[in-house]
């Protein structure tokens, strides 16, 4: 039975990845799961310099999900390359570095710094506000998304996954835009923008007012967008959004995802990623599926 999948020429031993921002750089979760058994570890977003992130509260529970407004706190590329990459390279798994920035040059700087590093794939977070364009996210304008894809691709030595924002009218248009910009793959969905209000204190639950909604609550939106993106582009699609079981992961794969990322579910169950690997294998056994790639996009 073959669980391996191919993302832009990089072979993952299975289609299960971690979702950026929920798994640190793997160290904390290595106490619970054998990272060698994951298809890939996707790191928390890294910028060119350290980011302090948002004030607290940064977290709020919502019905079947959660809001976060961490604000992409991260140690910056220097510490990341010195400390986190060597940690990850101890394991037999693929390393996907998630990159964030405030302006195009930030992204390019990080990508260039990684060009000689042992990194398998880059994932570009374009849900960050584009400081030069009045704060609308790169990922909310097809033109901006295509442009940043092009800028990153020009310097990137590793294949580039563009991570799409779901806070758009037409996700297919966004997928086509980054494909046109040269992306090697797309991943989606990033979080849906949400808000929670504390009616007793009459204040926002998050210091940042809004945050990103994730967890099983958003899964139907994510599956729909993954399906639409997979119909729209030829490059591989990586699906995520509320996956907490093998059944959930298979929904995305059948909708067209070549691989999946598991995020918020780690907070509820630190063993969940490997349970999903095992569950996909069990499903393939049950239905006599020899190669997981037969399932990709099998529901049309």
């Amino acid at each position, binding site marked *: 039975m073959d669980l391996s999948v191919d993302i832009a020429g990089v072979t993952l031993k299975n289609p299960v990845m971690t979702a950026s921002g929920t798994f*640190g750089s793997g160290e904390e979760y290595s106490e619970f799961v054998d990272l060698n058994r994951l298809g890939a570890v996707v790191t928390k977003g890294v910028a060119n310099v350290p980011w302090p992130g948002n004030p607290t509260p*940064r*977290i*709020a*529970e919502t019905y*079947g999900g959660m809001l976060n407004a961490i604000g992409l706190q991260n140690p910056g590329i220097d510490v990341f390359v010195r400390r986190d990459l060597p940690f990850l390279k101890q394991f037999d798994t693929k390393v996907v570095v998630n990159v964030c920035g405030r302006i195009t040059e930030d992204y390019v700087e990080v990508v260039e710094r990684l060009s000689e590093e042992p990194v398998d794939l880059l994932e570009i977070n374009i849900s960050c506000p584009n400081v030069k364009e009045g704060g609308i996210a790169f990922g909310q304008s097809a033109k901006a998304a295509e442009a940043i894809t092009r800028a990153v691709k020009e310097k990137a030595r590793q294949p580039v996954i563009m991570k799409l924002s779901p806070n758009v009218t037409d996700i297919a248009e966004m997928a086509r835009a980054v494909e046109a910009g040269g992306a090697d793959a797309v991943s989606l969905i990033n979080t849906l923008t949400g808000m929670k209000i504390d009616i007793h204190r009459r204040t926002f639950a998050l210091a940042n007012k809004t945050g990103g909604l994730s967890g099983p609550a958003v899964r139907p939106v994510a599956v729909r967008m993954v399906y639409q993106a997979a119909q729209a582009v030829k490059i591989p699609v990586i699906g995520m959004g509320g996956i907490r079981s093998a059944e959930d992961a298979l929904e995305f794969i059948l909708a067209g995802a070549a691989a999946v990322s598991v995020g918020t579910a780690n*907070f509820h*169950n*630190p063993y969940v990623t490997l349970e999903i690997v095992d569950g996909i294998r069990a499903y393939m056994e049950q239905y006599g599926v020899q190669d997981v790639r037969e399932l990709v996009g099998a529901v049309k």
Partner: protein
Amino acid sequence: MKRKESAKVLSQECLAPGIFSMWLLTGIGDEAVPGQFVSLYSRDGSRLLPRPISLCEIGEGRIRLVYRVAGAGTAEFSALRAGDSVEVLGPLGNGFPLKEAEGKRVFLIGGGIGVPPMVETAKRIPGEKILVMGYRDSQMFLKEELEQTGPFFAATEDGSFGTRGNVLDAVRENDLSADLIFACGPAPMLRAVKAYAKEQGIPAWISMEERMACGIGACLGCVCGSKEVDGHSHVKNKRICKDGPVFPAEEVEL
């Protein structure tokens, strides 16, 4: 070694209005120290985030949690009965630095739902300690357990027992002094303790609270501003769940 497991409930008891005590059958506490905490998980699929709860007592193969019902999640825990089970992750965080207490006279200061971790802390400090606890009223949960470990002073908001006011009012009214403080409680109390420690020139270790998601230092949800750059992001944001919850008072912003 942290782990998540299903733990059997041994007992459940209401200690005061909204305050419950639950013993769980689990080895998660066997290597734990007081001041550490565990995360409990709801059975209801609509509530996915863990509820961090401090260790009140640590027995062999069992732990005691004393917690306040603050919402639907903790209400669910309070309805668990002996024989039920609950998912628990732990042990989490750093705990109080018991070594610092050696040869010193220690204030153990707890306020409200910050009282429970002081029970195991008091038990593990063999030397001289003075317990100063703040409550809303005379419903002084865990008073008996605490009195067995050393001199006990209480402050109540309504003055129905001990000193009317806060824990520092009790310290002053009883003319107490110490060389070191371990404290846990609401932010205003911790702020007052920090100021008092500075004024007295003694070290204080305080236990912080924040909403958490992962509980193990990965998600950066529960940070607090720190004087020194943190080890993780190098941005002066310590992770309460992993670098804490116990910090030197002068180290963190309150």
